[in-house]
Each structure stands twice: as C-alpha cells, then as structure tokens.
C-alpha cells in the first residue's frame, strides 16, 4: 500500500512538472500554430537562473525561484519579439527557428557551466518528508503539485474571466476572425509566450527541487514528454493537458517500478500510440 501511495505521489509530482511545461506549449500552439521547440530551453534557462541566484548570487530559495521565473519570462518575450514575430508569414520557419534556439541555448549553458549536473539548493522546509497513509513522501512532490494546481486555476480564471483571456480563447478557435474584428492578436501572442515561458521557467526551478540537480539537457528531455502530453490532451486545451499530464506521470512511475527501468518511458509512447488509434484528435477532441 505504502509503495502505491509513494508511486502515486511521485507520479503526480512528475505529472505536475509536465503540466508546467505542456500548458504553455499547448496554449502557444493553439493560438499561434507554433510548436515551440525552444520551450525546453526556456525551462533550462529558468532552472539555471534559479540555481545561479540560489548559489552563486547567494539569494534565499524564496527569492531565487521568482528570479528564475522572471528571467525565463523575459527570455520567452525576447524570443517572441525578435525571432517569432518577424516570421509570422512563414509558419514552418517559425518552428525551425525555435529548433535552432533549442539547440543553441543548452549548448551555451553547457559551455558556461559545464556538462555535469549541478546540485540544486534545497531549503530546509522543503527537503523533509511527509507521512501520508503510511508512506514517506518527499515534500517537494507536493510543492510541484500545488504549483501546477495553482497554475491550472490561474490559467482557467485568466481564460474565462479576463478580456485578454477571451481574445486568447477566440484566437485559438479562429485567429483570422479575431483579426477581422479589428483586434491586434500580436499582443496576445506575446502575452501567451510570456505566460508559457513563466510556467516553463517555474517548472525548471521546481524541477531542480524534484531532481535535486540541474543539467543542460534536462529541458530537452522533459520537452519530449511535454509534447506527448500536448498531443494526448488535444492541442490548445489547458484542461486536456492537465488530465494527460497526470496520466503520463502516473503511468510512467508505475510502469518504471513494476516492469523495470526504462519501460515506463516506453509505455508512455505506447499509450500515445493506442490513444491515437482510438481517438486521433486527443482526449478533448480538438483538431490536431
């Protein structure tokens, strides 16, 4: 029983991490039709900025995380303004440009701080464990789940209750129509990129807590599972991404424990293949 609880909590923590990456990815794709390959790089930037602030700059963890998130957001906005915006008329080239950034940024991080994993600062409050139903679960799992739940709530409120959320939702449905109504969608593009970058950078900062260290390849590794989550959840749907990330995180943890290391990652891909055969449009039935 306690193994099941521990696996569930770890799986939920991992799923929360996937959601932090996938929610932004899904929104960006839904609104702009850009598959952001640089999203993993944004996560790495957030992770390294937090690590740098927490160790070399000597900030406390509670200041380092907002700092990392801010740096990631700024990077996302710069990426949108200087790389994506000039290529609006060439959608395929937008993807290719993000691929280039996705290659260059981890390489630069590796050049500056080395290829080895760096130990991540763990505040005493979050490094302990909690006893849940007889199982001993590290606290950082719950931190991740709480962050993801807050993000989901905030995103849903933003999309449902604010004027910009309305524009974003309308843009996901039909971008041309929104433009025809005289609304400048480009502001919404930058905004969505900023939100996605902030979520990914927060994921990077909290992912450092989860893995205990940061390394240059972490973002790219997580990005692939975030892609799986986005496809499974239905592209452009935040709630779908939340459901899918919980599924993927749980399946991965349980399969890794019960069938042997590595098979968890494979089972996620098999799950994706089965889902595509049954429902080619993902869980929420959105057009791919």
């Amino acid at each position: 029983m306690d193994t099941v609880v521990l696996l569930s909590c770890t799986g939920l923590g991992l799923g929360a991490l996937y959601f932090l990456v996938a929610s932004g990815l899904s929104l960006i794709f839904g609104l702009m039709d850009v598959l952001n390959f640089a999203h993993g790089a944004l996560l790495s930037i957030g992770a390294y900025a937090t690590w740098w602030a927490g160790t070399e700059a000597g900030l406390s963890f509670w200041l380092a995380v907002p700092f990392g998130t801010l740096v990631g957001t700024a990077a996302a906005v710069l990426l949108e303004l200087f790389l994506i915006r000039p290529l609006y008329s060439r959608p395929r080239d937008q993807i290719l440009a993000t691929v280039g950034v996705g290659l260059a940024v981890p390489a630069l991080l590796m050049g500056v701080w080395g290829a080895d994993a760096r130990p991540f600062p763990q505040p005493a409050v979050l490094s302990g464990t909690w006893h849940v139903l007889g199982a001993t679960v590290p606290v950082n799992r719950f931190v991740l789940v709480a962050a993801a739940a807050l993000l989901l709530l905030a995103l849903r409120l933003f999309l449902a209750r604010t004027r910009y959320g309305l524009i974003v939702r309308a843009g996901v449905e039909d971008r041309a129509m929104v433009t025809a109504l005289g609304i400048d969608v480009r502001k919404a593009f930058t905004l969505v990129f900023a939100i996605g970058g902030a979520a990914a950078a927060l994921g990077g900062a909290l992912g450092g807590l989860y893995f205990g260290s940061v390394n240059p390849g972490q973002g790219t590794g997580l990005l692939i599972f975030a892609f799986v989550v986005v496809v499974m959840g239905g592209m452009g749907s935040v709630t779908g991404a939340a459901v899918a990330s919980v599924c993927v995180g749980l399946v991965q943890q349980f399969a890794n424990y019960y069938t042997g290391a590595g098979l968890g990652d494979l089972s996620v891909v098999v799950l994706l293949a089965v889902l595509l055969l049954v429902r080619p449009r993902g869980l929420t039935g959105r057009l791919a």
Partner: protein
Amino acid sequence: MHRALRWWPIALLITFLVAPYSALPVPGLLDGPLGSPGSLQLLALCLLYGALATGYDLLLGRTGLLSFGHALYFATGLYATDLGMLELRLPFAAAAVFGVACTVALALLLGSVSLRVTGIGFSMVTLAFAQAGSILVQRNPGGVTGGEEGRSAPADLLPSGLLGIENTANLYWIAVGYLVLTVAVVHWAVNSPAGRVWEGIKENERRVEVLGLRPYGYKLVAFVLSGGLAGLGGVVYLLLTGGATPQAAGSDATLALLVMVVLGGSGTRWGPLLGGVLYTWAGHRLGDLANSATIADLPAVLRVPLSQPLFLLGTLFVAVVYLLPGGLARLPARIRAARSARAVRTPAVVRTARPTGGTPA
C-alpha cells in the same frame, strides 16, 4: 558552354570516384591529402549524410511531412544489421538485407500509426517514437544493444575487402554508391505519378482529397520509402564506423538532418545533398577548431560560445532560416533576381536624370 554545364553532376561523380587515387593536398578543407584514409573517411561520412538528407527531404521537402523521428530508421538499419551479425551470426550481406527489412517493417508499422494525425501532431508523434527507440537502445535490454557504448561489428563476418585502414577507399566507394542510389531513387520517385500526388499533398492536402485520392496511402509510401533509404544508410554507416553507437538514435541526429536539409534547401534536387556535406564537414572542422589554440587564447566571452559546436550550428541554423529562406540551393536564383531587379531600376534612374542634364542644349 551551357550544354556542357548541364553535365556537371556526371563530372562531379567522376571526380568523386577517382578521388582515392589523388594525392592532391587541400589545405584548410581537409587535414591530409585527398586520397589519404583520414580524408576519405571524412568525405565518405559527408557523402553519406548528404544522401541521408536527400532521403529525408522526400518527407520534408517533397511531401511536406515534418518528421522528427527519422534517426530512428537510420538507427534501426544500423543496429539490426549489427545485431544480425552478432546475435544471429548472419553473414554481412544477409544481415544487411535483414537490417533494411527490419527498417521497412518498422517504418510501415509506426508510419501507419503516426500518419493518423496531421500537421504538427505528426511531428510530435514521430518525435515520441524516436525518443522511445533512443531510450530502448540506451537501456540495453538483455545486454543486446550495448547501452551507452554500443556494439562494434564482428570483424570475422565482414568481407575482408571492407576491413582495415588500407581499404578505406572501398568504403568510400560504397558511400558514393549509396549516394548515387539515393539520388536516383528520390529523382525517380518524385517524377513518378505518386510523386505528383506528394507535391499536391505538400501544397494542399484538402484539395488532393477533393480530387478523390486518399493522401494517407501516398504519405505512407513516402514515409516507408524514406525510412528504407535511411535504413540502408545505417548499413553504410555501420561499415564506415565499424560499430553501432546510441548517438545515431538520439533526437539530435534527426535535428541534424533537419538542419542539413534546411541549410541546403528543402524540396530541391541537390540542396539537401549540399547541406548534408557542408554540415558534416563543418561539424568535424568546428570540433577541431573548438580544441585549437586560437580559440583557447580568446577571452571567455568569445571562447565559451565558440567552443560549443552545437551552439554554432544552432545559431547558424537560425541565421539560415532568417537570411536564406530556401537554403543555399536557392541562393543563385535569389542573386539573379536581385541583380535583374537592380537592372530594371537602373534605367529608371538614368531616365529621370536625363532631362536635368539635357535642358541646356
């Protein structure tokens, strides 16, 4: 003169074929003279990647399918051939057939699943499959794939003419042969009736459907053909490097192919080949450059980015996407267009200038 220029591919091919007999030094481009084993090995790799990029462009540039999992089929050809020899004790020729057959079967299976989603969904699904393959190879199931270190090909089962440093020329010729085969197959396929449908799918899939054709089947044919060519490339790679390593299966390998195609010019006959050759050559030379003394003496601000080949390639890629849409292959046409635009503009300037200059008379 123009007619003679049309035969340049044949002339280039003859140059490639006789290269091993030449001792021409190529300072700056290659380390040793042209016919030395080291240079031939690098040239063979360049040609191999040129051919792989040409095969990959069958999906990207000809059918409009952005696959992020092409390295999986390359790696399948590589590993299946290697393991066919190591585990099943097949002779090399049989193992090569086995490897390509495995690749085609896998491409058929995974292609039929991933083509159920269109557009970017397809890209993500192919990426996920390739990642699964990469993880599988690295986890070393049953000690078969050799994990991080890979498995080297058994010397006793390889033909003796393909072994040893003195036979590098034979391997080089095999790479040239693979390149010719790939270019011929792609050329033939693109000009076949199916090739016209691919072009239609690339331009507008909905209209192909309206014409009463099912794009799914045509896309699957392109996927399997391209995958099969990549599998054959894996066999050639096994001969060239003498073993299978997990780097061949990684997602970086597919991204490298993508960079090659875009650099050279996707959808053109020679662009991907040019891109593949340049990328591979640059990758090797940048690696040397990164370790050289000129870089080590630079201040940290310049030294750190310049010592990371992937950073340079990623930046180069972004620059090509921005400054050279259509890649290197479209560059002559763009220069010609720019020149003729200027030629049109110049008389206009002269005409407006003439009245002021001519009034005194």
